[in-house]
């Protein structure tokens, strides 16, 4: 069952079409990575989903309703949007108490979520003195305040050190294990690849693909890296055999979806000199880059 439904969503800021007829769904209990390069429209999409930005057209719904129509949004949906949205003079505990009092939650929840994100010791410190990593943790604590079943996180790994990213993965996995639905955006697939069940990839405001992580992994390909002084001559020869190859520097080619045997035989038949051949496999990040750069120029 779809918890989050984005349908024909568009947003225009002046001349810029930030989100362009975007549609996708997030099913209950799944962890979905919302991926795309910087400026692809991820943040704008999430802000429309949360009722902060009005769509130019289309709809974004949570459990069938626009966010603004949810009866008790904090107990329903938790969101982390930007790392710096705290008053610098307020302590972490008081920041959470402000949110708790507006949401009608008991103050005790503040200390509970601080412990949950490992900030119990910093409860009374002013947020102004927090590191970026601590702010991200406090943001997550705020999102968890109402113990919501749906979590929407915008670039939660931004500014985290490797230890922080490791911590974040653990938290996401833990939340997923509890059966919560999580939509987490990132511009780096590797940050979320170990945690997500599915990915929604967008570029220039448009949907590129929505698939399971397994399907994306299946798109990785066998590559042959060839070093030759005759790269320019070898390329059309490979193409004639139906093997695609991209130049990589002046004397290297990367042949896609083939084997060293096939490349070697083609080269030998034409008398092309090879210095080096290496079989590789493209990784997820390559697939991601390929998918997001393939998109045509904006109309």
């Amino acid at each position, binding site marked *: 069952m779809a918890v989050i439904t984005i349908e024909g969503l568009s947003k225009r800021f002046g001349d810029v079409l930030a989100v362009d007829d975007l549609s996708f769904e997030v099913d209950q209990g799944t962890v979905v990575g919302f991926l795309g390069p910087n400026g692809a429209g991820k943040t704008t999409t999430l*802000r429309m989903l949360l009722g*902060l930005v009005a769509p130019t057209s289309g709809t974004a719904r949570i459990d069938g309703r626009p966010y603004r129509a949810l009866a008790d949004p904090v107990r329903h949906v938790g969101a982390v949007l930007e790392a710096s949205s*705290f008053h610098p003079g*307020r*302590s972490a505990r*008081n*920041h959470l108490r402000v949110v708790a009092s*507006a949401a*009608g939650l008991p103050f005790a929840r503040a200390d509970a979520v601080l412990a949950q994100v490992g900030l119990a010791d910093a409860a009374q410190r002013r947020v102004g003195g927090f590191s970026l990593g601590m702010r991200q943790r406090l943001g997550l604590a705020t999102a968890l305040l109402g113990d919501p079943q749906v979590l929407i996180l915008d670039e939660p790994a931004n500014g985290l050190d490797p230890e922080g990213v490791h911590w974040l993965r653990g938290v996401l996995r833990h939340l997923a294990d509890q059966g919560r639905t999580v939509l987490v955006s990132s511009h780096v697939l590797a940050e979320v690849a170990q945690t997500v069940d599915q990915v929604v990839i967008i570029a220039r405001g448009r949907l590129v693909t929505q698939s399971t992580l397994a399907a994306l992994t299946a798109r990785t390909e066998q590559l042959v890296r060839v070093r030759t002084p005759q790269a320019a001559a070898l390329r059309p020869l490979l193409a004639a055999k139906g093997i695609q190859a991209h130049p990589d520097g002046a004397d290297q080619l990367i042949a896609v979806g083939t084997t060293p045997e096939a490349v070697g035989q083609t080269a030998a038949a034409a008398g092309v000199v090879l210095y080096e051949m290496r079989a590789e496999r493209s990784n997820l990040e390559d697939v991601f880059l390929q998918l997001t750069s393939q998109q045509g120029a904006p109309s």
Partner: protein
Amino acid sequence: MTRLVRAEFTKLRTTRVVYGMAAAMAAFAVLTVAANISDRQGAPPLSADSLPMLVGGPVTLLAGAALLLGILGMTGEFRHHTVTQTFLVTPDRGRVVAAKLVAYPLAGIALALATLAFTAAVAAGWLAAKGITPSMFDARLGRVLLGAVLAAGLCGLVGVGVGALVRNQVAALVGVLVWVLVIEGLLMSLLNAPSLGKWLPSAAAAALTNPGAAHLSRLGGTLLLAAYALALALAGTRLVVRRDIT
């Protein structure tokens, strides 16, 4: 709604702004009492009736403090981006602005009453030291307090309204200062007649804070300032409800 007003008070209590302002007001109150007692040129000598005059010293500044509280309370949300979290908790933005329109005038009134109580204590002590026993139950004292409460409350409303309209904290503060110190003065001299100038917002506030020198009655000033506050609050709310929070 009560919950949202309480949340606004929690916000106010958990930063240092309001404490700093209270300290500044207390210091200013002592200064006005000292100035009014020591500088008696052309004024009637100190007597048991001097208390209302002494207590009234900080009233104008207290109206300004309420204005400042309103502006800071509204624009602070945008300055520190806390508005995102605020609207996530309460997506009905009109209710958030309404809660601020209740909370900050009340905070301004509380600050005014606390400061005036402190001022009265200082003044009464000073007069007592000079051998004068001031009369505490003076109708004029009641009028000073009423004027202060009305001015602080309405100026707090104006502050929230201006904050919602302008959103940028520095622009709102500078804008209000320029309006009061420059534009109203220019308009006053351009209009060249107190009969028109008395309809300006500052003149309406002055009818409450300094009724002796004003051209409007207290009721007139109250109604006019309330009209300005309402117009600003409505326009500001409309804008905040519609604008994207990016």
